């Protein structure tokens, strides 16, 4: 597949998988207001993924007009885990509230920078989705940063849970800043932006919050600690379980609607 649709799928898969993970908290949040907050964030992300899947389908259909037209549903429900291109970080299990918050915090800071860069994409569809999504992500950044402070600078228990979460999630962070081959090609034609160029700003913003939260600041991981690359379809075992649940209905009853 050409680079641009693949890159759009990567962005869509990121939003869908994190949206799905966050939605697992619906009905299980620590208090009602925060249950609603995380469910709203999940809704934003799943909405963004829908817009991106629709765009990817449109771009793919334009490239192969002779084939049967793809829809957003084909892309979300009928691809296997090796075809999914989301970051490995995002498919990790929710763990406790601290781990869920930290993942949302790391990713929303990254996503905001990435979509800001994509405002200048030569693909007008991608630029429009970025413009729409940025407003939502700003809220996710604010909410998750406040929670990182509350937990890090909270009780000894909440602080130690944040340390555990950092230990578990930090090894997955380098992948955010390494462009996949299709991404490189899309960067070269002006439709994507280079994630390695976002690292400095991301690190500054994230470390500022972590320092306020009395947590250790993040220092880049040694390369090669984890060799999986979700962007290239190499995932942890967790993604398969997500897809099994998410895709069950369409796999068991193809084309089912209600």
């Amino acid at each position: 597949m050409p680079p641009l649709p693949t890159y759009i799928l990567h962005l869509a898969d990121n939003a869908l998988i994190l949206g799905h993970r966050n939605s697992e908290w619906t009905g299980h949040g620590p208090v009602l207001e925060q249950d609603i907050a995380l469910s709203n964030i999940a809704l934003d992300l799943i909405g963004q993924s829908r817009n991106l899947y629709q765009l990817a389908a449109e771009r793919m259909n334009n490239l192969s007009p002779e084939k049967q037209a793809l829809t957003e549903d084909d892309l979300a429900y009928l691809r296997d885990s090796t075809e999914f291109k989301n970051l490995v970080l995002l498919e990790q299990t929710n763990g406790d509230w601290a781990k869920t918050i930290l993942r949302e915090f790391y990713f929303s800071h990254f996503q905001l920078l990435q979509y800001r860069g994509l405002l200048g994409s030569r693909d007008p569809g991608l630029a429009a989705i970025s413009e729409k999504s940025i407003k939502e992500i700003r809220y996710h950044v604010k909410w998750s940063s406040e929670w990182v402070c509350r937990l890090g600078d909270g009780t000894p228990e909440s602080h130690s849970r944040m340390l555990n979460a950092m230990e578990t999630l930090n090894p997955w962070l380098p992948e955010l800043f390494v462009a996949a081959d299709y991404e490189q090609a899309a960067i070269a034609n002006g439709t994507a932006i280079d994630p390695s160029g976002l690292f400095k700003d991301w690190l500054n913003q994230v470390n500022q919050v972590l320092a306020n939260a009395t947590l250790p600041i993040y220092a880049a991981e040694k390369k090669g600690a984890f060799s999986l690359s979700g962007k290239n379809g190499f995932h942890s075992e967790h993604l398969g379980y997500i897809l099994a649940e998410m895709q069950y209905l369409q796999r068991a009853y193809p084309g089912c609607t209600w």
Partner: protein
Amino acid sequence: MPKCNICKEHIPDAHGDPMKKEDIISILEAVMDPEIPVLSIADLGILRDVEILGNEIIVKITPTYSGCPAMDAIEQDIRKTLLQNGYEKVNVSLVLSPAWTSDWLSAAGKEKLEAFGIAAPSLAQACAIGETGNDSPDHCPHCHSKNIQMISRFGSTSCKALYRCLDCLEPFDYFKCH
């Protein structure tokens, strides 16, 4: 103009009786938001434009938030309302850019919100929030006290946050600047 006087068919422009954009817009002003039933899609700024192509009507709408679950219901309501008024060929298309902003909420819409018990966006321009600043309601929509406190940044729908009034002690929704 439900049917053509001559052929009795629902083809509004068949016999020199062209569809008028302003007629269609005034019909669409009766389509209410399913989540906030006192506001029409025009009040909310969801209704962006109406185009007439031959005998087809293209209604352009934009979502408030990417994941707004009301969009499908709104699309159906638009079709139903136009059909009831004799317009059969309707195409509802979703536009994302320019992105919806609470600045598009009409003045009448803001008054209706307050009367419904939802605090209206406090800033005339949402971009005034800036990167890290917060927006909060100006006053409690029930007793107009300015002594208020945030309960949660996220409320019953994506577009609202939850507050409480420290004087009348009532909780209330705030329609966020966005």
